[in-house]
């Protein structure tokens, strides 16, 4: 079973040289800590920076320099600041090659829900709806089940949607899944996790073809 950091580490393996990447709040943010050697990527934060660097050294933090999670950050050499319309021009115009974001639920036709629990919690969608509607390449980082043990990998989402038919790949604490026509195709198992355990934690249709390898971290 993967920790949140390990989920991020596994997703980082998907990074390709020259990609611009948008990382959502939570687990996705951690992906920046695991960029593989020799891979040159640049991080976009939708509040208006490209070339986002690590957190600032204590005492150098700047209120005018934050990421979409409202965290203080730094700008790397070659960074650029821009307004919100330009930022979403980058996103909507598909200039960002990879979007990583969290989810409350995903369904096997690629729907995603992550912004609202009716009557309980309404934080808003922020940039998520623009991101999922536009990105060609979306990876969802999430826990396979909720705290009560119920699956979040579903036949159909029960919560209000963020986007339809957009999720292509999911990395959870248990597995790597691909969304294909027939359902969730199991690609890799987390170390020490059996196919049966994954099957049990998955409400949606799980497609298991041949031997399923263990992830390498």
């Amino acid at each position, binding site marked *: 079973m993967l920790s949140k950091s390990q989920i991020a580490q596994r997703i980082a393996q998907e990074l390709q040289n020259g990609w611009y990447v948008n990382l959502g709040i939570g687990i996705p943010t951690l992906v920046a800590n695991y960029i593989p050697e020799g891979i040159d990527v640049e991080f976009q*934060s*939708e*509040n*208006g*920076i490209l070339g986002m660097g*690590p*957190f*600032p*050294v*204590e*005492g*150098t*933090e*700047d*209120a*005018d*320099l*934050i*990421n*979409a*999670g*409202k*965290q*203080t*950050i730094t*700008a790397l050499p070659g960074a650029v*600041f*821009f*307004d*919100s*319309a330009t*930022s*979403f021009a980058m*996103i*909507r115009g598909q200039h960002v090659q990879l979007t990583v974001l969290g989810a409350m639920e995903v369904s096997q036709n690629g*729907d995603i829900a992550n912004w*609202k629990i009716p*009557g*309980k*919690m*309404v*934080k*808003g*969608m*922020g*940039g*998520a*709806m*623009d991101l999922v*509607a*536009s990105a060609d390449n979306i990876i969802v980082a999430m826990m396979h089940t909720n705290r009560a043990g119920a699956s979040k990998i579903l036949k159909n989402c029960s919560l*209000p*949607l*963020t*986007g*339809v*038919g957009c999720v292509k790949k999911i990395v959870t604490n248990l597995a790597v899944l691909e969304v294909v026509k027939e359902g969730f195709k199991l690609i890799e198992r987390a170390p020490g996790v059996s196919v049966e355990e994954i099957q049990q934690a998955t409400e949606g249709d799980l497609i298991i073809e041949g031997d399923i390898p263990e992830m390498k971290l």
Partner: protein
Amino acid sequence: MNKKVANVEEACQGIESGMTLMLGGFGLCGIPENSISELVNLNVTGLTCISNNAGVDDFGLGLLLQKKQIKKMISSYVGENDEFERQMLSGELEVDLIPQGSLAERCRAGGAGIPAFYTPAGYGTEVAEGKEVREFNGKPHILESALTADFAIVKAWKGDTAGNLVFKGTARNFNPMMAMAGKITIAEVEELVEPGELNPNEIHTAGIFVQRIFQGKGYEKRIEQRTVRPKN
């Protein structure tokens, strides 16, 4: 073309209860602190506020929420404000949640004389309810309309008395689009200079979009999430 006004009181003259306001900023970054304080002082109520976020409980737009001056919020993300969530879930506050990119583009459209445009964002979700859907290049899009405001209130780093503005870092965010979309646009700046002191190549918002500008004071610039690395 002198847009300079003496102070925040003069800048906010004419703002009345029931009006629609746009307020720049992302989280607490780049918000017009002086003008928000003045709105509290003016005690105008029944406001419709267009702003990406709603501040925190005791700062930014949270100050207006606490005094129940806001009737309706048009935002993309309001997760940092408990009072907001309470008022919304209880039905005291009308809320229109809009995808962040659509919000930015709708403000820009309002300022640019584009009454409506198509975007894929929100298709198949609550956001698309009641909106026209049309396919382009085999992909469904929804029609979104322009937003404008009686007053747009923005915060810049530097400005000149002709209304030209320069923003700093990620404090730029929604400020330039909202400046375009206000019937009257108020700009508060950390440093107000004379025309000619800003490089005409480096201005982010042209003075044509700004009707009033003043030198702000006492900026707190509160940080929401202070994340740092140790000194060594």
